[in-house]
């Protein structure tokens, strides 16, 4: 008797799980399509779905789509793995999308698939995480990589009077953008102004909070004279802030890097990260989508110096940055401090 009852129960729970998931996905799914009757179809492919940064990018992409009368589909893998982005690229190509906007997990691993897509006539715009230059038309960059590197060094230097041991808490050792920024940070540190700041260690928190927290703790322990940490990753900076907060060390060790205002609000107010930055993620997806739309219309070809209007963001120009491939820059980074952080909500 009991067995039978349990059997029914388990069936019910299984069905419930399925119904729940399908129901939810129909309702509030993080992935989805913003549809327009006419217009072109743009596939917006983040590194992974389910995390706030990309959700914000996706939302603003849809906002741009509404303004432009295009259709944007936001979808992607649940892990930040290049191999899992490829099926999405191929599928977008076969479905007859007109363009792909992608933030790549590995600049090279997605390139063959993107080239296949280009051969079928799709336009490829990369943003945030760039891909190989021959696999895309334009890269929509956050602030220039050299700027990002230099700014973060400055933000930290300002907090520690430009002297003392510092460390970098990065994401994964293979993250291309992280590595570029770190490269520029090291260049910046060679400048006279920063000669008393000594980089002692680059640690990797693998973009997950547990590892990032452990690494932060270990940094603090292994380098007792550590004055500051730069964490150019949103996961890293928030985990580092938590560790400083939880171990009551906010006054002794300064923290900066790239972080989301919402994640960092508490710690900015407590003085754990007095100054850090990020670009406006709301604008980022918006701009990338605009660029994609204009490229599709042939109004933008990627020639140096070309300028265009990007909706509410005003006029932008194609520049050559980090080499000689066409890049559109989002703009200067936002700097968050206790004074302004409540103005931002993402």
């Amino acid at each position, binding site marked *: 008797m009991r067995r039978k009852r349990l059997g029914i129960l388990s069936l019910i729970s299984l069905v419930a799980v399925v119904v729940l998931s399908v129901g939810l996905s129909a309702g509030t799914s993080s992935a989805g399509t913003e549809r327009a009757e006419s217009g072109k179809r743009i596939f917006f492919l983040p590194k992974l779905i389910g995390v706030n940064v990309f959700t914000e990018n996706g939302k603003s992409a849809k906002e741009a789509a509404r303004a432009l009368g295009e259709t944007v589909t936001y979808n992607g893998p*649940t892990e930040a793995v290049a191999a899992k982005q490829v099926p999405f690229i191929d599928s977008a190509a076969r479905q007859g999308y007109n363009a792909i906007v992608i933030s790549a997990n590995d600049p090279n691993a997605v390139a063959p698939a993107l080239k296949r897509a280009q051969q079928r006539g799709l336009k490829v715009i990369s943003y945030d995480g760039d891909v190989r230059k021959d696999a895309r038309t334009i890269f929509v960059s956050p602030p220039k990589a050299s700027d990002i590197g230099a700014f973060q060094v400055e933000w930290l230097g300002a907090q520690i009077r430009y002297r003392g041991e510092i460390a970098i808490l990065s994401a994964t050792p293979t993250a291309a953008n992280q590595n570029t920024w770190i490269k520029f940070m090291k260049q910046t540190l060679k400048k006279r102004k920063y000669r008393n700041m000594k980089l002692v260690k680059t640690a990797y928190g693998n973009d997950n909070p547990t590892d990032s927290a452990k690494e932060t703790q270990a940094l603090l322990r292994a380098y007792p004279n550590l004055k500051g940490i730069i964490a150019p990753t949103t996961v890293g900076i928030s985990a580092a802030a938590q560790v400083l907060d939880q171990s009551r060390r906010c006054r002794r060790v300064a923290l900066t890097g790239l972080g989301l205002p919402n994640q960092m609000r508490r710690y900015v107010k407590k003085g754990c990260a007095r100054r850090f930055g990020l670009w406006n993620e709301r604008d980022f997806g918006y701009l990338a989508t605009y660029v994609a739309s204009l490229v599709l219309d042939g109004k933008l070809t990627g020639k140096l110096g070309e300028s265009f209007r990007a909706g509410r963001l005003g006029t932008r120009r194609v520049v050559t940055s980090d080499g000689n491939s066409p890049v559109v820059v989002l703009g200067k980074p936002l700097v968050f401090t206790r004074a302004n952080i409540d103005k931002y909500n993402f």
Partner: protein
Amino acid sequence: MIAELRGLKPQQIAAAAFRLREIGLVIALGAAVVFFAIRAPNFLTVGNWQDIARDVAIVVVVAVGETMVVLTRNIDLSVASIVGLSAYISADYLASHPGTALGVAALIAVGVGTVLGFVNGLLVVVARIPAIIATLATLAIYRGLSFQVTAGDQVSAFQLPDRFLDLAASKPLGLPTLAWFAFAVAIAGSAVLRWTRWGRDFYAIGSNPEAARFAGIPVGRRIILAFTICGALSGLGGFLWASRFPNVDAVAATDFELDVITAVVIGGVNVFGGSGTIFGVVLGAVLVATIQDGFTLLRLSEFWKMFFNGAAIVVAVTIDALVTRRLQDALRRRRAEVLAARHAAAPPRPEAAP
């Protein structure tokens, strides 16, 4: 250590072998501590041990539940997904109801975990799907639910009350609150496994499921119970997770099951069920964290550190196996001496065949 066993009766040696895993772990931990204490100047500081305690705490809470499942010759791979989902749901509730007592939020997290763990148990027992497969599937399904529930959003630290975040920060009596939670769960888990009938049943089931059935143990219900407890503790782990890592989104605690299973395996719980203790698991978790911590303090290159962390697991398993074999050998030789002594006392009288 083996030399000391000389004077013991074989059965006492067997009993010692029974507890061997813990002995080996204590030795390994001791060796690691001595090594790092000599090589890494900041290793033996109160602060460092507080950090380790904080790192280990959530692993231990979930590992206690995992231990119960593994003891019954099953495995739960979905714990990290349960941690993530319950972390989000309880944090979200706290964020939208800031006045709520923490106990209520904890109950919500535990409740979510309990339900998900119960479903795992049903799949294994009623639908008869091998646990490793069933929970591999629910690992994906529960994580998928997390994505659906969060819809790409997150709960951020500033939305959560300070008293909640203090769980991770405060250190009553010098031990982080999180570690007190882990301590309480470990004590309760040990007590259950030692002193309750159903706790003992877990061992019996893992040791020999069919015999357990013949002995009148309600095997199916016990396995469901183990999964449910594991789910509940994962839920509690989720609650604690949200206080330690208060920016919670859909991918919270991804891959955390590897940490938990590593602690359980290193802690000497037999993967095929039937033996293992919570004490061992706690030691296992601490050992792993200590090694990781020590290598960082040694300022080892990041990449070599990764290599050595993995190698340390292999070395620990190898040493353990070799010591166990040595001990079994010692046991056999001890019996040889007893037999020889008996023969010397009463020499055999071979009968000549005519």
